[in-house]
């Protein structure tokens, strides 16, 4: 059976709870337990092979490009963790069935829990670093959901966020570390990486890798200085705490240290970083646990402390220490899970977890008390319980190290101090809860929980004793094969798992710890007084404040950068242009190229002067809007004369027509805008804008000059040569527009059409107020449609239409074409609007402009599609000459149809815009009636 079945089974399992929720809680629980149980069975079925020294692997190529192979490996270490994850997981599920109240969404809870279990199991089974990292992150996320399960509580939300942030940060560092390892080794396959341990340790980036990986591991395992998130994760429902903080989540970091132990350990840096962090955590956790009144608080800090102990062991760089570490992982998981569940029961049955309120529960819940005491004694490291054995090994190992040189004696001393503290808080847990007088003023009357709720605890307590008494039998093999994976190159060192190793220093240390712990517990009050004079900083508050400060700074920075002012945006745009183009331009040695310069005459100078004066006048007079509009008309006029001057009659025509329509449009808009404005810019800003404008102007002029004075080769000759023969027209510009580059024109009329539709949208239901008088306060004349104007305009219309037809027809061979013709028609019709008004004209032109636009563009496009019938690409032109009686040789060209499309689009677009603009002041404002 493939190892892949395990995650697949579990993933399916995540959906089971939600699906079976409605069938009742018992069914749901049973169904939920199926997937983990089956997985456990699969793992167990592999166990004999593993114990025989085999390693089960399985892989599936997923993303070769990034070196991500889905690769599973079941070895001793994985087996140990898998048993813990699944075994304790099953117990927690069972326990949670009784723990959660009837109205809580158990389906969701179990779903998250199984998801978490899947991720955790995937970590330990992964044989690819990237794959491991994926699972690693999913544990962070699913634990976020579990911690925040009671989402309406502020503490839950904050605790969840903090856990996610800290472990998330660590996860990202870990990713960087893994990627570096991948770079160094060339693969993410853990087996290969373990084999390449020396390459990594000798690599110059080893310190970076180590630090990154350790940040990942330490954040997850709540090692100093990242330990602060863990106590606040206690906002989670107790089964979650029991699971996450005994066997799984926090152990993931430890697992990683163990997994990469063969690769990264053995150096001085490792020793320093890992053992110091472990030692600090060990002591700090134990010390703080002394002062916690909340049962789960004690357990949380105790967890931190024990994790520190394990880390310290792994950091010691001795083989036996590593074995001890693994042994303590097992033991801690067992007793801590049961303690959490016990705390849950006490909370459940009494309504409180505060040790100052709890006391004397022994009388009310003796079974629970017994089981809890077993686990608590194990936690304290009392002989005959499993915790004792690993702690004894720990003491022994602290004596073996010598890396701190002459200060090495500090380590066993501090270890003993930690031991003392452990005993003290364990004793307090037992004494303050179960003994010490009668319970007073509890929210509930205490009683024993349902038997089934005690069952998981009982099972674990029994394990504590069995391992404590028969360590070799119970755990020896598992420990051996898991420890052997830490030393792939060498065989396991000798160690003995037994209660009695004779009278030695570790035993002495144990005795000191127990006696000292008891003494400390009895005399704890002075210590309490000492401790409580400090203001206990609440990590949650600090963290939240830090986050809020972060957001505040971000907002300040954001607001500083972005003042929501277009002037700044455009200014920056221009400044960037300057910054990017000015340096290369400075490198231009000669602005002038090699082309001979053409002479100028007075007329040209005069026109240039008019152009420049017009342009500058527009800028200066922009506050007197009408005048500026007239000035810009002058500029437009001279520009079109310029086009004519430089042999571009088509451009001159187009420019002129566009210019007029635009100005009319601007006038229409100006009616609704302020006619004059007060100064809108400070002098300083004017100077700055002038400078920017001047530099941009200078740059553009320089480029322009440099270009037009240099000779160049262009593809244009082709167009001139093929215009008549290939495009059927002598006006090369027009042939380019409708044939060579007809595709551009198609896009261009599409733009025009869309713009018209968009303008119609903008005008729909526009809430505009009409000015009742002009800027001088003169009210409008009452002569809306001067009769003389009406008369002349109507006489002009046929003439204008004829001219427009003329311009259209000749466009292919002479200046003109559909676009200009369209604008001329439009202008002629606009003139009718100006003379007669919208109310008069609109009903007389019974045309849907929207359809005109659509048909126009469609005509152009269909002309292009027509070429498919001749198996030619889109827009391939067709033309031929026909001898028509009486008329003579006549050219028919597809381009003409294309151009007709252009014409229709232009007319439709212009009139859609203007007609609807005109309606604004009548009763027929554009509304939602059409389309």
């Amino acid at each position: 059976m493939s190892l892949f079945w395990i995650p697949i089974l579990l993933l399916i399992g995540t959906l089971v709870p939600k699906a079976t929720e409605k069938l009742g809680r018992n069914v749901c629980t049973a169904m939920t337990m199926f997937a983990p149980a089956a997985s456990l069975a699969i793992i167990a079925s592999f166990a004999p092979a593993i114990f025989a020294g085999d390693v089960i692997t399985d892989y599936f190529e997923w993303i070769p490009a990034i070196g991500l192979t889905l690769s599973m490996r079941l070895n001793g270490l994985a087996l140990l963790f898998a048993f813990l994850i699944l075994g304790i997981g099953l117990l927690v599920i069972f326990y949670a069935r009784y723990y959660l109240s009837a109205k809580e969404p158990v389906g969701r809870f179990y779903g998250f829990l199984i998801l978490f279990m899947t991720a955790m199991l995937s970590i330990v089974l992964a044989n690819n670093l990237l794959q491991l990292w994926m699972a690693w992150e999913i544990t962070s996320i699913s634990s976020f959901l579990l911690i925040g399960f009671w989402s309406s509580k502020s503490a839950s939300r904050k605790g969840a966020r903090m856990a996610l942030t800290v472990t998330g940060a660590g996860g990202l560092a870990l990713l960087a570390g893994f990627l570096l390892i991948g770079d160094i080794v060339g693969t993410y396959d853990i087996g290969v990486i373990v084999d390449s341990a020396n390459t990594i340790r000798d690599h110059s980036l080893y310190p970076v890798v180590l630090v990154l990986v350790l940040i990942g591991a330490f954040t997850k395992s709540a090692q100093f200085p990242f330990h602060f998130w863990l106590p606040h994760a206690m906002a989670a429902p107790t089964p979650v705490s029991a699971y996450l903080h005994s066997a799984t989540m926090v152990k993931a970091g430890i697992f990683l240290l163990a997994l990469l132990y063969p690769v990264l350990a053995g150096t001085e840096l490792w020793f320093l970083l890992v053992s110091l962090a472990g030692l600090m955590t060990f002591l700090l956790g134990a010390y703080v646990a002394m002062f916690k009144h909340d049962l789960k608080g004690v357990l949380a800090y105790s967890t931190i402390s024990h994790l520190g102990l394990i880390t310290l062991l792994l950091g010691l760089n001795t083989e036996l220490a590593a074995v001890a570490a693994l042994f303590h992982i097992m033991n801690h998981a067992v007793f801590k899970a049961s303690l959490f569940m016990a705390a849950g029961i006490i909370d459940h049955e009494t309504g409180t977890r505060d040790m100052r309120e709890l006391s004397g529960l022994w009388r009310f819940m003796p079974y629970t008390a017994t089981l809890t005491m077993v686990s608590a004694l194990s936690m304290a490291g009392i002989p005959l319980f499993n915790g004792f054995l690993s702690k004894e090994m720990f003491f022994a190992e602290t004596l073996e190290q010598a890396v701190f040189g002459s200060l090495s004696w500090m380590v066993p001393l501090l270890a003993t101090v930690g031991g003392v503290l452990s005993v003290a808080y364990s004793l307090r847990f037992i004494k303050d809860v179960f003994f010490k007088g009668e319970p007073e003023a509890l929210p509930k009357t205490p009683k024993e929980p349902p038997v089934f709720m005690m069952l998981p605890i009982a099972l674990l307590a029994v394990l504590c004793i069995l391992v404590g008494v028969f360590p070799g039998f119970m755990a020896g093999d598992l420990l051996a094969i898991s420890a052997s994976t830490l030393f792939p190159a060498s065989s396991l060192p000798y160690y003995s798992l037994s209660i009695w190793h004779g009278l030695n220093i570790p035993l002495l240390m144990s005795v000191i710890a127990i006696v000292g712990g008891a003494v400390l517990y009895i005399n704890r009050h002075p210590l309490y007084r000492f401790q409580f004079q400090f203001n206990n900083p609440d990590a949650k508050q600090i963290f939240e404040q830090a986050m809020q400060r972060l957001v505040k700074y971000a907002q300040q920075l954001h607001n500083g950068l972005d003042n929501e002012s277009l002037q700044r945006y455009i200014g920056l745009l221009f400044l960037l242009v300057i910054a990017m183009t000015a340096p290369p331009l400075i490198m231009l040695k000669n602005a002038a190229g090699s082309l001979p310069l053409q002479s100028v005459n007075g007329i040209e100078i005069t026109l240039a002067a008019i152009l420049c004066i017009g342009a500058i006048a527009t800028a200066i007079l922009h506050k007197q809007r009408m005048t500026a509009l007239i000035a810009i008309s002058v500029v437009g006029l001279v520009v079109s004369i310029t086009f004519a001057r430089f042999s571009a009659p088509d451009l001159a025509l187009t420019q002129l027509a566009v210019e007029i329509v635009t100005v009319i449009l601007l006038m229409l808009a100006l009616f609704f805008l302020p006619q004059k404005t007060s100064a809108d810019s400070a002098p300083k800003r004017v100077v700055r804008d002038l400078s920017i404008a001047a530099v941009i102007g200078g740059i553009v002029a320089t480029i322009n000059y440099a270009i037009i004075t240099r000779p160049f080769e262009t593809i244009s000759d082709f167009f001139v040569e093929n215009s008549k023969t290939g495009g059927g027209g002598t006006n090369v510009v027009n042939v380019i527009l409708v044939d060579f580059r007809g595709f551009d024109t198609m896009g261009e009329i599409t733009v025009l059409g869309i713009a018209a539709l968009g303008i119609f949208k903008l005008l729909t239901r526009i809430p505009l107020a009409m000015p009742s008088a002009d800027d001088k306060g003169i009210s409008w004349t009452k002569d809306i449609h001067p009769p003389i104007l009406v008369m002349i305009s109507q006489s002009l219309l046929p003439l204008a239409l004829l001219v427009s037809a003329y311009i259209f027809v000749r466009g292919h061979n002479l200046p003109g074409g559909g676009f200009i013709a369209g604008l001329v028609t439009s202008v002629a019709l606009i003139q009718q609007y100006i003379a007669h008004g919208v109310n008069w004209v609109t009903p007389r032109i019974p045309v849907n402009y929207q359809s005109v636009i659509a048909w126009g563009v469609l005509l152009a496009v269909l002309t292009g599609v027509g070429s498919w019938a001749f198996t030619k690409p889109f827009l391939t032109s067709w033309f031929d000459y026909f001898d028509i009686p009486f008329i003579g040789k006549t050219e028919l060209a597809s381009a003409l149809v294309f151009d007709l499309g252009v014409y229709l689009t232009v007319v439709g677009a212009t009139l859609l815009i203007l007609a609807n603009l005109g309606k604004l002041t009548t009763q027929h404002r554009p509304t939602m009636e059409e389309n």
Partner: protein
Amino acid sequence: MSLLSRLLPTPGRSAILLVIWLMLNVTVSLGHIIFGSVFAIAIPLLCAPLQISQPRIKKPLKALKYFFMVLGDVVVANVQVAILVLGPISRIKPGFVAVPLDIKEIRPITILASTVTMTPGTVTAELSKDKRYLYVHVLQMPDDEQEVIRFIKDRYESAIKEMFQC
């Protein structure tokens, strides 16, 4: 209504359009005459809804005569005004006059107003709402303003009246 009159409601206008088409294309080829005829027929039909019905010129020859008369006036007056403009400004004595109108329809009035404006020295400024007076700005006001009014009425308005037979 016959097909012809439906197709060609304004034959005069169509003819003018055809002539203009030929002028535009600088040709009298048959092809263009056919082509131009299509436009000359189609465009008036298309424009018909946008036309206000007005009296037509009944005497085209009178109109032609009127045209050349105005042309001559324009040239002469142009020279006078040019001298006025280039000479000392202080000599200029402008003024307004109100010309009472006999013609009532807007098309003849428009022609009169245009004539007044096109002949140098006078500009039509306004038409009273009841179309009874044409307000004219005169660049060089004679001592007797009736002179101007008489000139306009006798020389132009009467000719226009004949043209339109109104």
